[in-house]
């Protein structure tokens, strides 16, 4: 694998792992859902 291959692969992996972990942490840290509100 050449240097460009490494760059593209690592950036892609950091982006998908980073975004997913960030999103779930944000969700888990959010205030609990309001169960009284119905649609």
């Amino acid at each position, binding site marked *: 694998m050449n240097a460009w291959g490494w*760059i593209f692969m690592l950036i892609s992996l950091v982006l998908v792992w980073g975004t*997913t972990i960030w999103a779930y942490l944000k969700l888990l840290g959010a205030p609990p859902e309001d169960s009284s*509100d119905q649609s």
Partner: protein
Amino acid sequence: MSTQKKTIEWGTRVGVILAVSGSAVGLGNFLRFPGQAAAHGGGAFMIPYVCALLLLALPIGWAEWAMARHGGTKGFHNGAAILGVCGKGKIARYFGVLAILIPMVVYMYYVYIEAWCLRYSWEYLTGGVQLTGSIEEQVTEAARFFGDATGTSTNGVLNMSAVFWLIVVTLNIVLVYRGLKGGIEKFCQWALPAMALLAVIVLVRVLTLGTPDPTHPNQNVLNGLGYLWNPDFSKLSDFETWLAAAGQIFFSLSVGFGVILNYASYLKKKDDVALSGMTASATNELFEVGFGGLITITAAFVFLGASGIVGTSTFGLGFQTLPVVFHQMGVAGPWIGFAWFFLLFLAAITSSISMLQPAKTFFEEALGMSHGKAIALTSVICGLGSLWVIWFSKNTMALDTMDFWVGTFCIFVLATVQIICFGWVWGAEKGMRELDQGALIRIPRIFLFIMKWIAPIYLLVVLGGFCYSQLPGKLRAMATNPIELWTMVIILASVLLLVVVLAIGERRWRAAGLDVDGRTS
């Protein structure tokens, strides 16, 4: 419908995200993505891919989440009625029939492939996959096994895979019958983590393969990764690459598919849709790029080299090439084979259960049917269509026809209708306010511009390019092939049925005083 509204809902915030992610993560993540990337510039493919993700999939996905939740507050949970509300009238509503048709018809062939995955995992568990001789002989044997196991060698055969099909169909019906919270959500809550675990096991084994054959020192893991990731920048000037990237993003994320319109309609008015939509997309990308992008091609390259991959279809790679690869792994091979195909099975079933739900809800709401009767009707229609696919299975002719016209073409059309409804009829500003309601993140305002201008134009260009490059050939082929022609008749008959049901439903909804045309905010 007001009674249903009170009783049908998601259990938890994470539950709905896992269900949407489960719907999105499917065979395309593990088989289609690596094949598309390798064929269209390797690492350079990620540039149009990320553009399509940010400018098409994410904004259209958000639009779907917002329109669905809004439609839900009006008492609708079926895509046709929801688009009628947000598109303010008949035209959008009748185009919305696609939001029922697409998952229903895709289910007809998807569940067949799902049965292959279950059959393969069973065969690995019981030692049924036996390959002998040289690599070339094993490849031939794996291809023969595939033909026999799936019935794709000839038409009119209901072989052992039909038994697995029956198991899979029953499982799908039971899960949907148990409802959103008790069936789909509960199943996805363990299936998604199980998929991640199986993917990690297979990935670790693949990345630790090293150079298994000293006589072929170039066939190692690093070169396997390089085969997929080394960029070919010249491909970026090719329109086909941009088209392929947009197509991959669409099929992979279930955008324009009709499922999100149904799932998100059960959210409450103050539930978050902004972070939820993004999390579901991120989860899908993790499976696609983080796992799919590292496993399939790398494993095939290490044992078979570039010549073993070139010209192989993505399905061929998954079902015919990888069994040869697993055979080279020695004692661990059958276990890795089982893990791989069970992973594919879980990915497929979390998608297929989501495909039954839109039609079931549509029949419930339009015809006033009970939950059980709506599932029975949906299952009969889908089952008959699926039997057609199984019967005319030679070279997957019926399957490919449905996949092209419904699983590809109709998805582009529905996505275009949706983003135009969101950006221009409902109003992008109003839509953005809806997205902000209950949001756990603030969506950057640039997306207002993207949703109104960039996404529709981008999509129209993609749709135009797709029609120009694909449709003439497909129409010519259909005119000379009776199976393709009759498959198209089945698709059109399904459209007609759904249009009639919608007309009946519209009358009922108006009589019940529902805001069918979205006249009030």
